[in-house]
């Protein structure tokens, strides 16, 4: 019986599995150490994997996840967009731990589909207000000094569907437009110095080679500060959907600025007011005014477990509450967790590396008595910025901003262990 609660059986989909797990978890036999000891055939009988040889080396020259993990995938929401080529899917945050997002699970956001570019055919041009407009091949770029950095990337529209009220039952959908990987690349500053930026070069227009030729204006101060032109993620080449072979990396700023399939950097003296910084990625307020150039991603956190897609299936007793916290303003100072809808708070434990402007992993280990919980988490960064409540945010901005919703999320854990996305008074 225990095997059905701990791993998905073949042929079951994720929902069936969850239902089965819940049913089993509700049974009295699952009380932990005190449960009556019954011989477990998984122990008393020799199993196939224990008797027969497994696959040899090279059975999977590029390794893939276990066949028992088919549900750990990115998901989209079909009705959100008109086409899959200009759309988004979401990182399965509820299935992950630690701070690094596996390359194949990093959410995708494209505006004209995934460009398919052979590295030998890729060029990067620097032009505009420079001493010498230059063209680089990938081979040229690999000869500049490199850096490695772990940073989070969050889409400005992450949680954008939750402004008016609780909508999606799952942190994958409410918060899954974020990922955190280690990039390897060349400081943008070195490339700009190679071309020689003129004194009046105050802005940079980054352009992708995809069918949307995605563009964004970036102030030169940021470009010279910490931007990177990256070709590796988590040690291997960028995935095609993440901009292979070359991506711009604009730490702690909106994900749409991290130009994928990067092919052109134009230096100018004013912003270009491109589509993705005027008609989109501007934040409409209740007054009818709209903020533009809202680049920095504010402090934010989310409890990933338990959550609607990851209910409690083990009954009462020890419970690990786990989540992610991050801030574009810098390092996370603390993260607080409430189990009563924000009335009382405890400081959660941050574990694992605490990199500047990266995701942080937090835990709160509690003894669940089986009563309903209203789970919340709240980030505080090193500059004293914290996450507002949803009502605080709406009071200032209204409900039509789409972008930059960094408010506190509430999960309602019910007595049976199921979890729902709710708002509270």
């Amino acid at each position, binding site marked *: 019986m225990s095997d059905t609660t701990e791993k998905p059986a073949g042929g079951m989909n994720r929902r069936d599995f969850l239902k089965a797990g819940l049913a089993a978890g509700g049974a009295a036999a699952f009380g932990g150490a005190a449960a009556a000891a019954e011989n477990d055939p998984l122990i008393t009988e020799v199993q196939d994997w224990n008797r027969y040889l497994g696959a040899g080396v090279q059975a999977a020259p590029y390794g893939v996840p276990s066949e028992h993990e088919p549900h750990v995938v990115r998901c989209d929401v079909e*009705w959100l967009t008109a086409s899959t080529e200009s759309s988004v899917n979401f990182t399965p945050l509820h299935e992950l731990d630690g701070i690094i997002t596996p390359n194949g699970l990093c959410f995708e956001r494209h505006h004209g589909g995934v460009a398919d570019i052979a590295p030998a055919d890729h060029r990067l041009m620097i032009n505009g207000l420079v001493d010498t407009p230059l063209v680089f091949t990938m081979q040229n770029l690999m*000869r500049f000094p490199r850096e490695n950095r772990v940073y989070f990337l969050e889409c400005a529209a992450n949680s954008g569907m939750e402004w008016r009220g609780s909508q999606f039952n799952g942190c994958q959908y409410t918060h899954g437009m974020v990922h955190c990987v280690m990039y390897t690349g060349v400081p943008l500053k070195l490339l700009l110095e190679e071309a020689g930026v003129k004194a009046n070069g105050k802005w940079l227009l980054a352009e992708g080679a995809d069918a949307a030729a995605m563009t964004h204006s970036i102030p030169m101060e940021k470009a010279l500060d910490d931007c990177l032109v990256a070709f590796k993620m988590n040690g291997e080449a960028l995935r095609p959907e993440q901009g292979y072979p070359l991506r711009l990396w604009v730490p702690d700023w909106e994900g749409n600025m991290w130009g994928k399939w990067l092919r052109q950097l134009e230096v100018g003296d004013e912003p270009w007011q491109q589509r993705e910084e005027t008609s989109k990625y501007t934040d409409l307020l209740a007054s009818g005014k709209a903020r533009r150039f809202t680049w920095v991603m504010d402090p934010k956190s989310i409890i990933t477990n338990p959550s609607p897609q990851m209910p409690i299936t083990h009954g009462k007793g020890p419970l690990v509450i786990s989540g992610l916290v991050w801030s574009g303003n810098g390092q996370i100072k603390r993260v607080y967790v409430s189990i009563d809808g924000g009335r009382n*708070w405890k400081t959660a434990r941050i574990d694992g590396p605490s990199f500047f402007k990266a995701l942080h992993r937090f835990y709160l280990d509690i003894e669940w008595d089986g009563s309903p919980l209203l789970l919340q988490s709240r980030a505080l960064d090193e500059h004293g910025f914290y996450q507002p409540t949803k009502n605080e945010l709406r009071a200032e901005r209204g409900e039509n901003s789409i972008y930059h919703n960094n408010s506190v999320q509430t999960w309602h854990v019910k007595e049976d262990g199921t979890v729902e996305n709710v708002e509270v008074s």
Partner: protein
Amino acid sequence: MSKFPKALIVLLSAGVALPAFAADGGKLGLGRPATQEEVSAWDIDVRPDGTGLPEGHGTVAEGEVLFTDNCAFCHGDFGEGIGRWPVLAGGQGTLTHERPEKTVGSYWPYLSTVYDYVRRAMPFGNARSMTGDEVYALTTYILYLNDIVTDEDFELSKENFTDIYLPNEANFISDSRYDEPFNTEKHQPCMTDCKAEPAKITMCARILDVTPSSVEDDGAGTVD
């Protein structure tokens, strides 16, 4: 050793200096100068002050034909948008409504963005296929659909382009997030009894039930 070029052995044994490390801030001499033709091929952006506009012109009537043939399939004959494809026209006065309609006429601040975007990314799936004159004609027609241009004989050109302003330009403001109360009060957060009453649930997601694989997975919202 047999693969080692003899010439290199000679150089090394002769004590020839190894390549120096690049000095800080020094150029590495990587890459090559771009040609003027290469820059022109990729540098197609247009700014609100007209910088980047090509020579050319186009009328409302020319734009209507092009729009019907190339754009209406997604955007509708009148820019009303088919399904979830972007609405291009109308929506003036709705920005403070519960469901604002953000179009070129109601929301976009600059006309140059229309020209720039159509030229670089439209039609969807056949980018860079329009001539400069065709993009002028389409831009003119989008102005016409939004009643910003009412004369059917109007012709937009490089010369008169910057005379036209979109009505919502003045409503764009700079980032004022850090004036908001929760971003200015740097107090220690409350830890106990932070609410007078126990928190009550005021809304649940199952009311909407739009999560994929749920029963009624057709909700409201956009990622733009």
